[in-house]
């Protein structure tokens, strides 16, 4: 990993009696695209404001480029922010907005003109220099806000839910452009978002937060495939939670367990004890689903269900275009959601409500967690 640009060491932030951030330790590497992901009120914006210099740590330390930032005001920090509502200066033209930081830094007139036009081209707003912010669309204002920040060549760019005010299509487009921009500039980006898709699409690493604490830090793939707890698993996408008990350990990472009434084989790197209650987490797309009657007729098919075979009944089908979801109620009463891809050869949905089905999963795709009650 590159050297650290931002370091937080045991940071707390209290507001009155309320603890907004608790014991946050985090290192952001130079040139990294890091997302802070969590629901509103989880402290992710507070963390961003702390780094920006708009709040002070109650306890702990914040370092930028190895320098302690205690009582260093925002104007003296080599970070710039793209605010949620852009916060463009309404009385200034686009040019003056973008030039603001350079003028504060007492750059020469020619340098400023050149840098502003370069920034405008980078965000594809060349020719808009003399408009006022109110004359621009939301997407254009967004680009001005980004240009205004990056023109100062900050060490870290802080982005506070920058895309939340844009419509779905524009948001998708801006996600790609932001990622592209970050690669071009090589600046460290720190993005706050509550949108898992956004965080996953753009970030090198994601920090999942809840109630002022960091739940997990990892690459999008790690977060999605190996969530450390139920909260993280539920926050990033749909997940099915099955309950079970460990019966037997058959190898260093293999177990036999009773899950929703069926005996199954599990894999986990965790140390699990005999008799321990567990959650087995499976994404909708991790399941295998077949009709019982088909399995009875095919040795190949039944072999695929050797390590896990739960019995259930199809309840409902939800059509999504490229995929469809099947809601299955297991014999234990638990309902699960299974995502199936369309078979190229068949025009019809393969399952219909009332079908008796066997439910298994691709071996090793399950995540086993200690029971959280």
């Amino acid at each position, binding site marked *: 990993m590159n050297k650290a640009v931002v370091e937080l060491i045991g940071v707390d932030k209290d507001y009155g009696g309320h603890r907004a951030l608790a014991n946050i330790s985090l290192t952001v590497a130079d040139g990294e695209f890091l997302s802070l992901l969590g629901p509103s009120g989880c402290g992710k914006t507070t963390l961003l404001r702390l780094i*920006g*210099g*708009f709040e002070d740590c109650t306890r702990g330390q914040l370092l930028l480029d190895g320098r302690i930032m205690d009582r260093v*005001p*925002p*104007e003296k920090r080599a*970070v*710039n*922010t793209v*605010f949620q*509502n852009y*916060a*463009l*200066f*309404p*009385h200034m033209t686009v040019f003056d907005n973008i030039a*603001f*930081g350079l003028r*504060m*830094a007492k750059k020469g007139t020619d340098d400023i003109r050149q840098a502003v036009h370069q920034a405008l081209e980078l965000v594809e707003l060349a020719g808009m220099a003399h408009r*006022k912010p*109110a*004359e621009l669309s939301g997407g254009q204002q967004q680009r001005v806000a980004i240009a*205004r*920040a990056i023109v*100062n060549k900050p060490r870290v760019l802080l982005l506070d839910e920058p895309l939340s005010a844009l419509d779905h299509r524009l948001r998708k487009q801006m996600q790609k452009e932001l990622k592209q921009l970050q690669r071009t500039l090589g600046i460290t980006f720190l993005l706050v978002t509550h949108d898992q898709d956004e965080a996953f699409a753009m970030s090198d690493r994601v920090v999942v937060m809840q109630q002022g604490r960091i739940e997990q830090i990892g690459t999008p793939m790690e977060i999605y495939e190996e969530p450390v707890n139920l909260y993280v698993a539920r926050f990033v996408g749909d997940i099915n939670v099955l309950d079970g008990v460990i019966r037997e350990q058959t190898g260093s990472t293999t177990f036999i367990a009773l899950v929703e009434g069926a005996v199954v084989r599990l894999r986990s790197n965790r140390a699990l004890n005999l008799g321990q209650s567990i959650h087995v987490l499976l994404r909708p797309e991790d399941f295998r689903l077949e009709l019982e009657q088909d399995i009875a007729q095919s040795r190949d098919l039944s072999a695929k269900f050797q390590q896990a075979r739960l019995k259930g009944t199809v309840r409902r089908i939800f059509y999504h275009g490229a995929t469809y979801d099947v809601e299955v109620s297991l014999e234990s009463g638990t309902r699960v959601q299974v995502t199936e891809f369309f078979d190229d050869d068949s025009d019809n949905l393969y399952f219909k409500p009332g079908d008796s089905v066997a439910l298994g999963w691709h071996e090793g795709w399950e995540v086993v967690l200690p029971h959280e009650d």
Partner: protein
Amino acid sequence: MKTESRFRLLLIGSTYTWMVVLALIPYLILLGASFLERGEGTLVVSGWSTVNYRHLLSPAVFGMALDSLALAAVAALLCLLAGYPFAYILAQAPTRAQPLLLLLVMIPFWTNSLIRTYALVMMLKADGFVNTLLRAAGLIEAPLQLMYTPIAVFIGLVYTLLPFMILPLYAALKAVDPQLLEAGRDLGAGRVQNFFRITMPLTMPGIVAGTMLVFLPALGMFYISDILGGARTMLLGNYIRDQFLVFRDIPMGSAASVTMTVAMGLMLALHYLANRRSGREMMR
């Protein structure tokens, strides 16, 4: 429905009736009178004349009008200098304290301004509160001459008109998005630069509105000049009052009155046009 519309007609109708009877008709009379001439023995003589308006352009009267404009301008500037910091602190104060602080600005309105002006005499006269205090503190030996000076008139004007400056400034300052100031800091501006580059330009409509609300009345507050300035300081208001009540020259007073009203109207129209233009720019 029908009663409602009848009620509405009654309300609007009575408002218009008041406006016509108490404002429009008297004003038309004033306008008419300004084109008459003063008569010996009678109040006016009939005929059509612009002599009054020509007299207004004579050096003596025109000079007085300019002095009056300058005096009102200085009063407005003093109000701005005193009012802006106050409004700024008010707008920054804890949200719960703001209504109370606003109330303190409004309370003096509950007392008649003539009475408050007489109260100022008590403060400013030779053996008044200010001189007694300064002498007790050992800062001066002989009492300062405050009464019947332009300083006293300024004190009176500023004291009376300051709330008209504070309220629009407060409204303008409250409308400035605090996040813009954070954006300024983020981009390297200190508090002082933030103020001059962001807060002040954004509160310009409030500054203009407050200045108009102080400047226009300051032209006509003759009693403040009378009570605190003695005979030496003259406002346009004093001149008009004197024409009507001292010299009994109703046409002349009318002409001065009409001129002042037209001047004020022009300024308000300019203010309105400037506002509308910037408003349109915002909308685009």
